[in-house]
């Protein structure tokens, strides 16, 4: 239930530095907070507001629009079963029903041990691989009921360390080395880019 750790605050500042206007970092910072705490806490939003020089209420105002941001604790594994049209045609509803039975919770619920949350989800762009689901936004294609049971067993037994706890998205962060950075283009300091002229940027005559 926390503000950013020192380490995460440094990451937050690095993210902010890439945008011409600090507020553009709002969504990535909310993700960072969720990675740290598993969900998006009031203290984190307060801290994000301070870093972006806006009110915490403005952070909440934006964050509450987006369904990936959880304002309350959720399971270590958030299971999103797709029930949009392509998955619906291929058994997505039955898969969701099976998941409800297997986990003993209804769509929207969390298991008592805090391990699983279950959601019926809209299209996750795996339509040719229906029915599909995500666990913490990692894809599982063409999932049979037996596949689902195995997956749950593996997660319970701690055999899927390739799936980090809820809140963690990409595991590699973008790094722009200072000596390689072109620099942000601030909206108020615009001149015509130097390369935009009538001659090519690359003058060599090597093979194309």
């Amino acid at each position: 239930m926390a503000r950013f750790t020192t380490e995460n605050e440094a990451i937050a500042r690095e993210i902010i530095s890439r945008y011409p206007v600090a507020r553009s970092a709002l969504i990535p910072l909310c993700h960072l907070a969720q990675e740290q705490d598993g969900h998006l806490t009031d203290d984190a939003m307060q801290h994000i507001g301070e870093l972006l020089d806006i009110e915490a209420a403005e952070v909440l105002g934006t964050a509450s629009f987006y369904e990936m941001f959880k304002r309350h604790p959720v399971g270590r594994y958030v299971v999103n079963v797709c029930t949009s049209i392509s998955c619906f045609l291929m058994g997505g509803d039955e898969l969701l029903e099976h998941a409800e039975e297997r986990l003993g919770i209804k769509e929207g619920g969390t298991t008592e041990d805090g391990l699983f949350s279950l959601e019926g989800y809209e299209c996750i762009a795996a339509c040719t691989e229906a029915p599909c689901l995500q666990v913490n936004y990692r894809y599982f294609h063409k999932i049979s009921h037996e596949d689902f049971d195995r997956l749950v067993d593996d997660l319970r037994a701690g055999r899927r360390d390739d799936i980090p706890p809820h809140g963690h998205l990409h595991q590699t962060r973008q790094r722009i080395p200072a000596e390689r950075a072109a620099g942000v283009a601030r909206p108020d300091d615009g001149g015509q880019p130097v390369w935009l002229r009538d001659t090519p940027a690359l003058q060599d005559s090597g093979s194309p």
Partner: protein
Amino acid sequence: MITDAQPIITTRFGYDDSHTLERYLATGGYEGLRAALRKPPAQVVDEVKTASLLGRGGAGFPAGVKWGFPPANVWPRYLVVNGDESEPGTYKDRQLMERDPHQLIEGILIACYAVGLSQAFLYVRGEMALAQERIAQALNEAYAAGYVGKNILDTDFSVDVVLTWGAGAYIVGEETALIESLEGNRGMPRLKPPYFPAAIGLYQKPTIVNNVETLSNLPWIARNGGEAFAALGAETSRGMRMFAVSGHVNKPGVYEVEFGVTTFRDLIEAPIYCGGVRGGKKLKAFIPGGASAPWFFEEHLDLPLEAGAVGKAGSMLGSGAIVVMDEDTDVVRACHRVVRFFSKESCGKCTPCREGTAWLEQILARIIDGHGRPEDVDMLLDICDNISPGINWPPRQTTICPLGPSAVSPIASAVSRFRHEFEAYVGGPVETTVHMTGAAYTASPREMAGA
């Protein structure tokens, strides 16, 4: 017609390490960037205009023309890459981001060089963790190798490409909503005019918003020339294009085919593509271009995947998503499932969409639950008419963006073609009401579309 035209943007998909710089460089990677940098920027724009590359996001606007929109002498200009793929049925941009991120980055650099864009933001859908990871890795590699950032390939062309990511909202795929989201706001579309972010976009500055697949074509065009690209395809639809075919077919998949000449029948029935409707069943209906598109039926199978022809027949190719329903499909439930999506994803800014899509969903749910009344179908159409007056194609709008009217397409399609299935659910004949204008749900689907 099935042609032997070779793929352009899915060529590396067969390699396990297709996402790495090493594989990319071994297969012609960043040669398009070199070719582009050997020309003055204006000539690169001309190549893309010659190619007649249509935007692959859904609206199908010519990319070269869009690039010409930024007003002269207003700087800086930005590039925003739309990687927020989430239209139901659509599955192509995620593959391009996960499996060939360098190709996309190279396309971004070519666009920035050509149009004079000073910074690029690559907005990846929040739910796509692997795509974000692959792009972060690829950018880190590309920066280290001198392809991105300061003095690219030792020239004075310098641009940063920043990975940014969303948090779950379909509407952010609408370009002005995407810009709002990138500015740290709720992802609600902006009031028009101004119609084009290319004039007033991110931070109120000229901003080109291009789709992932659109940009992924640029390295090939830069290497091979616009004319080579325009030699592929037909009429208003040039080049190759990715189509995702899902639903009741034997081999659902994503296929890159020659745009404009391949037909729906080719894709759905040919053994090298989907191999026909599953289990030898008959086709009942198919969605030709994502959930927003009016449905097509058996008589449309021989239409080419060509924007003009599909538009004239009353639908659209949209985001290249074909969803096939066989004869056993309960169309009332299928219709509800599509409408539910738009109801959930309405951003709430415009009343006809916010209230209308929710009412449509509730009425359809009531019908499915067995509590429907014969007049419910009239009510559905009345609400549709309020969201999109006349229920026609292309749709008129009472809303800022097309999300609301998108919920009208499945209802108009299903009711006009399968009225008896609705009648079976509501237990009585369905009458249309007099104040509903247009022939939308009394005529055939072709007439409905004004074809």
